[in-house]
C-alpha cells in the first residue's frame, strides 16, 4: 500500500510547473525543465503501467487518512492506461512544441505541466470532489493553452469553450452535492459499496446527481448537443496543444466509465442503468453531427477536430451498454483514436505549414509531399477505420460488442454510415491537399523535432493492430476490473469494509 510511485504522476508535473513559474523567461531553461519532467513522468508511468497490468490495484492514502475520510488515489488498469496515454501524448506534444511553438506565447511550459497535473490527477483520484478539483485544474490550464499563440480565432473559440465549461463546473458541484447528500460519502469505492444499500428514497437524488454529472462529463467528452465548443477550440489551438487536448475529451469518457461503469454499475445497484438510455441516442447523433461537420469543414484542423467528435460518438456507442465487452472495445478504440487524432493534429499543422495555409482549398504543393502524403494516408485510413490499421480492429471490436437486438441495428448502421461519410470527407481532403495544386508561397521543410513525434503518434495505426491482441487483452482485463470492482474496493477500503453490506 501507499507506493509513493502512485502519486508521482501528479507530483512530477506539479513540481515542474512550480519550478517553471520561478524559472524566468529563458526558453532553454524552460524546455530543459519541462523535458526532464515529461521524461521522468513517462518513466514513472511505464513502471506503474507494468504494475497495473499485473492486475493489482494500488491505492495511495493522502495524508495517511483512511478511506473514505481522506482522499485516496487509486491505480487500476483503466487509470494506468489513461496515464500512459497522457504521458505519450505529452512527450510528443512537448517535443513538437519545442520546435518553436512554445515561444509564441507566455508560460507555455508551466501551463503544460499544470495541464498534466490536472489530467493525471483526474485519472488517479478515487474521490468525487477531488475529481472536480482536478477537472478544474486541467480545464483552466487548457483555457490558457488554447489561447497560446494568440489570434482572434483562438480567442473566439476559447470564449465559447470557457463559458460552457464554467457552467459545466457549477453543474458538477450540483451533482456532487446531490450524491453526497444522498449517500454521505465522496469516495468512489465507498460510493460503490454504499449504493447497494442506500435507501430507496435517496435513489432519486443519486440519479439526479449522476445525470448531472453525466451532463458534465458529456460536455467534456463533446457529446451532442454539448459538442459545440470542440471544433472551434481544437480546430484553432496550436498544434501541440490540440494534440494534448485530444486526451481531454477522453477524460470525460473516462469519468463516464468510472462513474457509470463502476460506481453505479454494481449488479443490483441502486441507480440501475442510469446513463445508457440518454447516452445511446446522443452517441448516435454525435456520430452523425461529427461526420457531417467533417464533410462541411473548411479547414484541415477543423476537420481533425470533427474527427474527434466522430470518435467520441463511436466510443460511446461501445460504452453505453456498460458491458464488459463493450467497454473493452471502447477502451481499445480510445487508445487508437487518441493517438491517431493527436498525430493528425500535428500532421495537419505540418501540412498547413508546408502548403502555406490550413484552408481546404487548392494550394501550393506540400514540400515533403511523399512523406507527409503517406503519413496522411495512413492516418486517414486508420481513423476512418479502414484495414489493416487500428481503426479497423477498433471498429470491429465495437461492432462485435454491440449485439443486443434493440440497439445493434442502430449502432451498426450509425457506425458504418459514419465511416462512409468519414471516408468521403477524408478522400476529398486528401486529394485536395496532395493532388490539387495551385501557385502560392509554401513553407519550409519540417525538422526532426516535429516529424518524429508526428510520425510516432501515427505509427499507432499499424502498431495497435500488429500488437492488437496484447492491447485488446489489456483493455479487456481493464474493463473486467472496472465492472467487478472488488479489487478496487478492497484496495481502497481495506478487506474489512469491502464486505460490509
Amino acid at each position, binding site marked *: 500500500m501507499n507506493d509513493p510511485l502512485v502519486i508521482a504522476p501528479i507530483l512530477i508535473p506539479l513540481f515542474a510547473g512550480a519550478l517553471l513559474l520561478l524559472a524566468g523567461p529563458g526558453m532553454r531553461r524552460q524546455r530543459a525543465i519541462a523535458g526532464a519532467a515529461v521524461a521522468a513522468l513517462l518513466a514513472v508511468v511505464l513502471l506503474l503501467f507494468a504494475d497495473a497490468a499485473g492486475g493489482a490495484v494500488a491505492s495511495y492514502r493522502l495524508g495517511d487518512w483512511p478511506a473514505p475520510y481522506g482522499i485516496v488515489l487509486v491505480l487500476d488498469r483503466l487509470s494506468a492506461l489513461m496515464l500512459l496515454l497522457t504521458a505519450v501524448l505529452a512527450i510528443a506534444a512537448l517535443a513538437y512544441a519545442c520546435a518553436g511553438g512554445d515561444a509564441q506565447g507566455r508560460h507555455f511550459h508551466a501551463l503544460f505541466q499544470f495541464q498534466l497535473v490536472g489530467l493525471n490527477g483526474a485519472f488517479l483520484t478515487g474521490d468525487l*470532489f477531488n475529481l*472536480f*478539483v482536478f477537472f*478544474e485544474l486541467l480545464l*483552466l490550464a487548457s*483555457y*490558457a493553452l488554447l*489561447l497560446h499563440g*494568440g*489570434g*482572434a480565432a483562438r*480567442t*473566439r473559440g*476559447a*470564449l*465559447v469553450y*470557457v*463559458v460552457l465549461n*464554467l*457552467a459545466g*463546473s*457549477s*453543474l458538477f*458541484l*450540483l451533482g*456532487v*452535492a*446531490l450524491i*453526497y*447528500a444522498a449517500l454521505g460519502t*465522496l469516495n468512489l469505492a465507498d460510493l460503490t459499496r454504499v449504493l447497494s444499500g442506500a435507501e430507496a428514497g435517496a435513489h432519486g437524488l443519486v440519479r439526479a446527481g449522476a445525470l448531472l454529472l453525466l451532463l458534465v462529463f458529456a460536455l467534456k467528452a463533446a457529446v451532442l448537443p454539448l459538442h459545440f465548443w470542440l471544433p*472551434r477550440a481544437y480546430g484553432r489551438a496550436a498544434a501541440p496543444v490540440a494534440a494534448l487536448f485530444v486526451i481531454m475529451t477522453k477524460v470525460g469518457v473516462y469519468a463516464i466509465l468510472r462513474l457509470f461503469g463502476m460506481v453505479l454499475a454494481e449488479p443490483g445497484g441502486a441507480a440501475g442503468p442510469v446513463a445508457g438510455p440518454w447516452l445511446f441516442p446522443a452517441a448516435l447523433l454525435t456520430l452523425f453531427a461529427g461526420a457531417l461537420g467533417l464533410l462541411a469543414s473548411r479547414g484541415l484542423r477543423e476537420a481533425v477536430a470533427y474527427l474527434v467528435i466522430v470518435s467520441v460518438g463511436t466510443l460511446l456507442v461501445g460504452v453505453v451498454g456498460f458491458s464488459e465487452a463493450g467497454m473493452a472495445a471502447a477502451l481499445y478504440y480510445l487508445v487508437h483514436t487518441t493517438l491517431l487524432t493527436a498525430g493528425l493534429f500535428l500532421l495537419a499543422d505540418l501540412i498547413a505549414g508546408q502548403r502555406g495555409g490550413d484552408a481546404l482549398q487548392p494550394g501550393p504543393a506540400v514540400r515533403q509531399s511523399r512523406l507527409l502524403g503517406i503519413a496522411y494516408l495512413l492516418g486517414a485510413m486508420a481513423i476512418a477505420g479502414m484495414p489493416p490499421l487500428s481503426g479497423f480492429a477498433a471498429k470491429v471490436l465495437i461492432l462485435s460488442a454491440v449485439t443486443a437486438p434493440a440497439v445493434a441495428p442502430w449502432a451498426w448502421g450509425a457506425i458504418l454510415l459514419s465511416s462512409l461519410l468519414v471516408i468521403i470527407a477524408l478522400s476529398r481532403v486528401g486529394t485536395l491537399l496532395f493532388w490539387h495544386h495551385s501557385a502560392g508561397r509554401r513553407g519550409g521543410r519540417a525538422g526532426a523535432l516535429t516529424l518524429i513525434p508526428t510520425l510516432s503518434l501515427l505509427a499507432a495505426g499499424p502498431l495497435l493492430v500488429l500488437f492488437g491482441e496484447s492491447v485488446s487483452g489489456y483493455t479487456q482485463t481493464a474493463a473486467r476490473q472496472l465492472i467487478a470492482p472488488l479489487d478496487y474496493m478492497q484496495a481502497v477500503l481495506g478487506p474489512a469494509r469491502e464486505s460490509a453490506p
Partner: protein
Amino acid sequence: MALLLAGVIGIMVACSAYLLLRGESFPVVLGLTLLSYAANLFLFASGGLALGGAPIIGAPGAGEVDPLPQALVLTAIVIGFGMIAFVLALVLRARGDLGSDRISEGQGRE
C-alpha cells in the same frame, strides 16, 4: 428554512441561466458568477442546515454541523474565483481581438 433556501437557489440559477443566454461576454460572465454562487450554496446545502452553530469544537451546535460540505465549498469558492478572474481576462482579450462583446462567429445569427 429549507424551502426558502431552495427557492433562493432556484431564483439564482434561473437568473444566471437568463444571463448566460444573453450571448454577450459581460452578462455571460455575470451569469457565470451568479451560477457559481448558486452552486456553492447548493453544495453547502448538501450537508443539511444547521442554524447558528459552527463546525468548531466547543462551539454551540457543533455536533449538528456537517463540516465537510463547508470545506468543499471553501475550495469551490477559491476555484470559482480563479475561474472568474481568468474568464474576465479572456473577455478583455476578446475585446481586443474581436472588437465586439458578442460571442458569435462571423455568420452567427440568432
